[in-house]
């Protein structure tokens, strides 16, 4: 009974003693210890800085999504991978404006929607032109879904829409590149051999963010109806739900509505896809995981190399201190106590490497955060990454310190004392 009580106490006492010994040993061989841990330092520094970079990127992306709006849902045509629709031609897959009639009444979670077209066109003003400007057809409701203000002129109205007038909104970049005046309202530009009157200037996309740069800033907007009549184009839709929390309901309603309006049978797969900003987040997370896995592999290798270094130095330490081990055994150290001493030394050495690595990682993170235009200014090392690093470093210590420690524990006291 007494043994049951004293055994853990003895272990704790030995552990404390071993830690003190290990620290003393490392302090006595400062240079050697530091060099030995280089592998661990590099491993931990790279894993922490990669995680820091991804964390920063993620924070940035989330912030961008907030400005983009997380309550947007894109509705795009989609070929099913299996079933009878696989063989459908594009005429059956593409959307028609009629299929969206009555959407707002049938989908209570949707606040608004706009049909959209999107094509690259060359636009002209006199001798000036822009190749590959984005020409978008939009409903007037677009202005309520996108938070982009009209900085000059007026937004689109129902009149523009219903009459299919050849009017347009342009972004400041288009205005500047076509050498139009600041006051360009009422001027005409040519798109696809047709003349469009400028009725307003709408601000450009959010810039600087991860997704702000995705599309061109040279955009021209025309009424959807006009685009539809002129080009008979592929169309898609952008809807906004009343609240971001309603996103799931809104998607369910849309799906139900579209399946009906597109006359899909009960067993038919969807011929459209709903894309939510969160979907992009999932894609981002997948990408981040892939990067982490690759980084993890690199880190694994450097920790392995570091571990072999640790094992080597521990073997040196054991053979250097053979006499000491013999003496400790002679005065009553059990093999387990010797094992513990060397294991603790190896673990402490690795944790020391982990500490240096974390500091180096912090340094690298501060440098990364200063890279301009890399969207990494929010990079920081999360606490769990530090815990993970120390956990890994400690495990390397246990794993690679085990063999030298067992070697020490098994030494015969007399032989050890006779060692030179």
């Amino acid at each position, binding site marked *: 009974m007494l043994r049951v009580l*004293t055994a853990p*106490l*003895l272990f704790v*006492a*030995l552990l404390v*003693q071993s830690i003190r010994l290990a620290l*003393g040993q490392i302090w*006595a061989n400062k240079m050697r210890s530091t060099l030995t841990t280089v592998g661990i330092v590099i491993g931990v520094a790279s894993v922490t800085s990669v995680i820091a970079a991804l964390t920063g990127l993620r924070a940035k992306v989330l912030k961008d999504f907030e400005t983009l709006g997380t309550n947007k849902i894109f509705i795009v045509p989609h070929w099913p991978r299996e079933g009878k629709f696989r063989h459908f031609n594009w005429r059956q897959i593409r959307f028609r404006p009629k299929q969206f009639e009555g959407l707002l009444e049938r989908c209570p979670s949707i606040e608004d929607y706009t049909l959209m077209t999107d094509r690259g066109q060359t636009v002209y003003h006199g001798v000036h032109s822009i190749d590959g400007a984005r020409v978008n057809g939009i409903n007037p409701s677009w202005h309520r879904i996108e938070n982009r203000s009209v900085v000059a002129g007026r937004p689109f109205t129902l009149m523009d829409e219903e009459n299919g007038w050849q009017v347009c909104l342009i972004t400041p970049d288009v205005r500047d590149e076509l050498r139009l005046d600041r006051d360009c309202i009422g001027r005409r530009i040519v798109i696809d051999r047709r003349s469009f009157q400028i009725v307003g200037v709408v601000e450009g996309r959010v810039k600087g963010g991860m997704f702000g740069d995705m599309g061109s800033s040279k955009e021209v907007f025309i009424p959807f109806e006009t685009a539809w009549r002129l080009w008979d184009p592929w169309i898609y839709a952008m809807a906004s739900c009343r609240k971001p929390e309603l996103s799931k309901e809104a998607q369910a309603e849309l799906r139900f509505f579209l399946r009906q309006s597109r006359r899909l049978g009960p067993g038919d797969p969807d011929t459209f896809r709903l894309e939510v900003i969160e979907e992009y987040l999932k894609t981002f997370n997948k990408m981040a995981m892939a990067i982490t896995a690759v980084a993890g592999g690199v880190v694994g290798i450097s920790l392995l190399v570091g571990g072999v270094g640790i094992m080597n130095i521990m073997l040196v330490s054991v053979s250097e201190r053979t*006499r*000491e081990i*013999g*003496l*400790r*055994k*002679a*005065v*009553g*150290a*059990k*093999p*387990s*106590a010797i094992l513990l001493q060397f294991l603790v030394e190896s673990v402490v050495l690795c944790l020391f490497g982990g500490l240096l690595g974390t500091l180096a990682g912090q340094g690298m993170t501060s440098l990364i955060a200063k890279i301009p235009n890399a969207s990494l200014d929010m990079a920081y090392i999360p606490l769990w990454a530090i815990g993970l690093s120390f956990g890994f470093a400690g495990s390397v210590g246990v794993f690679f310190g085990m063999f030298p420690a067992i070697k020490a524990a098994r030494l015969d*006291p*007399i032989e050890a*004392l006779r060692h030179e």
Partner: protein
Amino acid sequence: MLICLKNVTRVYKVGVERIHALAGINLEVEPNEYVAVMGASGSGKSTLMNILGCLDRCSGGTYELNGRDTTRLSSGGLAHVRNTQIGFVFQSFELLPRLNALKNVELPLIYAGGTTWLARRTRAKEKLERVGLAGRIRHRPNQLSGGEKQRVAIARALSNNPSILLADEPTGNLDSHTSRDIMMLFDELHRQGQTIVMVTHEEDVARHAERILHMRDGKIISDEHTGDRRLTPEDMEVDDA
């Protein structure tokens, strides 16, 4: 009976050759005895001491310490015996160079466990005082003379109040003057009731003991009591007081 060896042998294998370092030792040692082991170099004295000190195992025969058979103990069990019942003094001191005198003396107490930091410290100080080194507790081995080093080693051997103090040529590395001081320390420890078994090849050192064993070729060839200096019960009472 403290020590009882029955037909103990120790065989070393060197290549194909077998060296019988101990060739059938029978020995009994009572508490409070003061035994000197003598013999030519290579006669097996150290081998015998290592077995008595549970540092080594015999190849044959039995060794009972305090009535317990040690031959079947695991290496952990032997470590426990070394820690609690045996104090070993080496010819070459074997102090840990990075620890000061106090820490060196504390070492066996650490492995014994069950003591607080303060208790260890107090005990170690007390033992250092007992060997006359109260003023050297913070000194490291390289700051001590040979005699002082051996005193620290003796204090370390005594730290767990062992039932037997073993010393293998404790004065072998010391000059004759220092040797005499160390021997006087052993005498005093014996007077206080400590059982001692000591190896020496010097006649005048052996003369301090009350019993002298002579060894040759791994055997005890003579076992003589040189005047009964064993403590009487009255002496012990005086000492306790």
